[in-house]
């Protein structure tokens, strides 16, 4: 069962293991060494727990995965290191199973709202999405909803205008809801397929800023039925336990439909997605894997788990 890579291994995955190996940080790397001793004893399980924690899976999820592995090992009489590793992979994949990760795009125009905390990579993600939509032969339009951060609109324009994508923006400090409204009007007039809404980064604990975001969403919903069809929460892979708090708060305010996990080209793995997916019933849909405009890929659970395990055997 466990050849998640095979021929359809996504491009981003090809780039990950080498880096992880260089760091010696791969879970699988250390696990194999550990499991080579044989039986699943308490010390081994403790080590697996720590390695999962080190990938930011969170202590409760790490405990659960270890417990699952222990039971599976007993039930299926797993002994060899490779079997145990496969067992752990199955445990992890089962947590990410059965979710619809497709991006919805059907409105005329459709609207995708992109939100997240400061520095998570929203603007970059919007630019990548624009490139992706454009490459599919559709016509995106970008709303520069970040009217707070200095030069955010300039950054956006420089990223997407070379692609031939329009940006609708107001002057700095303008009401983002008004920007988004104008962008939707412009998209209708120009017969664009999709409005991509960039928003200002905001900490999920800032009530007034979260209310501002809620207003943006209301304006979208009031203007075009059944929109936004995607409300994407951008989460930085380098974040730890706080990701869960972010996901909770943003989900409530924007009715998030999916997660974009960014900066996965670094050493961080964002293991918190196991908890986020389950607790908030929120699928990871995309992963950001670099600074290029095409460094955005569909999330593939099997490939992700392999990357977590740095499993060169795959």
């Amino acid at each position: 069962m466990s050849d998640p890579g095979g021929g359809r291994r996504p491009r981003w995955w090809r780039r990950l293991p080498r880096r992880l190996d260089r760091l010696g940080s791969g879970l699988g790397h250390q696990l194999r060494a550990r499991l080579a001793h044989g039986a699943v004893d308490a010390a081994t399980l403790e080590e697996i727990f720590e390695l999962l924690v080190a990938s930011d899976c969170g202590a409760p999820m790490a405990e659960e995965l270890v417990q699952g592995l222990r039971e599976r090992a007993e039930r299926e009489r797993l002994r060899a290191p490779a079997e145990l590793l496969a067992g752990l992979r199955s445990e992890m994949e089962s947590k990410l199973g059965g979710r619809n990760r497709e991006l919805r795009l059907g409105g005329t125009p459709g609207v995708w709202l992109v939100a997240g905390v400061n520095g998570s990579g929203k603007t970059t993600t919007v630019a990548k999405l624009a490139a992706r939509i454009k490459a599919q032969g559709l016509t995106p339009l970008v709303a520069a909803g970040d009217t707070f951060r200095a030069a955010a609109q300039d950054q956006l324009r420089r990223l997407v205008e070379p692609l031939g994508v329009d940006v609708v923006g107001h002057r700095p400090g303008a009401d983002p809801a008004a920007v988004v409204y104008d962008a939707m009007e412009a998209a209708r007039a120009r017969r664009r397929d999709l409005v991509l809404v960039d928003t200002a980064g905001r900490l999920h604990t800032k009530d007034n800023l979260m209310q501002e975001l809620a207003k943006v969403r209301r304006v979208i919903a009031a203007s075009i039925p059944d929109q936004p069809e995607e409300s994407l929460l951008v989460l930085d892979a380098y974040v730890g336990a706080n990701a869960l708090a972010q996901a909770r708060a943003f989900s409530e305010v924007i009715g998030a439909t999916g997660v974009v996990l960014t900066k996965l080209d670094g050493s961080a793995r964002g293991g918190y997605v196991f908890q986020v997916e389950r607790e908030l019933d929120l699928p990871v849909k995309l992963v950001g894997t670099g600074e290029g405009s095409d460094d955005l890929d569909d999330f593939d659970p099997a490939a992700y788990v392999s990357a977590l395990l740095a499993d060169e055997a795959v």
Partner: protein
Amino acid sequence: MFDTLTDKLGVAFKHLTAKGRLTAEDVEAGLREVRLALLEADVNYKVAREFVERVRDRAVGADVLQSLTPGQQVIKLVFGELVELLGGEDQALSYSPEPPTVVLLVGLQGAGKTTTAVKLSLLVRGEGHRPALVAADLRRSAAVEQLQILAAEHQVPVLVPETGRGLAHGVAAAVQAARRQGHDVVLVDTSGRLHLDQPLMDELAEIRSAVRVHHSLLVVDAMTGQEAVRVAGSFKEQVGVDGIILTKLDGDARGGAALSMRAAIGLRVWYCGVGERPRDLEPFHPERMARRILGMGDVLTLIERSQEQISEEEAVSAQERMREGRLTLDDFVTQLRQLRRLGPLESILGLMPGGRELMRAQGSALPGEAELRRLEAIVLSMTPEERRKPETVDSSRRRRIARGSGTTPAEVSRLIKGFEQMRSMMKGLSGAGGRRRLAQELLKTPRGRTPLIGG
């Protein structure tokens, strides 16, 4: 959102404080909870493990198990260790006698370098200096504009390096230009980069060799998880880092990364960003951070208060009598008074992790101030002989005591029965055992068991 860390420690310390007497297993279970709480606060897993080992060693060394209040002793040890880990002298920018003082800001993408550069320039100006900024982030689109706009709002000049002969050369030239313009502090904002990106890390090293950098500060997002230590270690090794600026601390991130930096790679936090306004950069306070990480500042208040209020001698003599099975109702009254000196039960519980939860669960069954006074009155209406030997209280004495204390004979007998049970139990216990359990037993309400604290 409810404070999950306080919850978790509440669970841990509930185990520790519920029973007066702890076994080694109890301590182990409590320490595991502490470790989980640290991990949930993003403390690096190695640091968390070593931390708990140190607390365990000290707990054994300090004979915590034999002490009167072992649970509190463990809590104190945990906090003490944490402050020690974070502590030390406050760090701040020092200024070179040969200006300009050059400060290099480095970090991952999205950590907050550009915003921090402007904030730091205002802090520097506030200390009587003339700062200038160098916009060395020429990679992220519009990063230079972002810095220029922010800096212009506060009249801080920005120099943009010429890159014809390489970035490092350009930065060096910009620093010299700033000096000529009379600026004595130059802050260099650099591009965000992955610590794995060799060419970009080399670029920083080149800047360092072209410019005499006095302080190289790593900007770290307070929300960073387990990778924080590896990232910081890598920057330190490849570029050289003197200290940390922790950003976005105005959110609800625990910032366990900060703790880990000091413990794992010896880097201290110098400043922290606590808001989006340019003035929102503060010096770092270790104790505050320790409290934040544990979410337990209030527990300390409680411990301090109990240390003030309960003299060691009082406690020790009660302990001795208890050990010998000579406990009397006088001791009980002493305990009650000590408890009441700490304040109303509600407020004591409120100070404890998980205490509020307990209060909600307990509802009206919580013995209030009035109930404690009634118990005290019952004992005070007894003769000294009766207090030493409650078994001598018969039905006519019971009626007398009830009249004297304004209670009912049933209440009197419930108190005596509970006390006798406790005393017989206590004879079997060697240690500090049942001080708390005694109180619990005696405070049983008509509705049933009422654990006094942390049941």
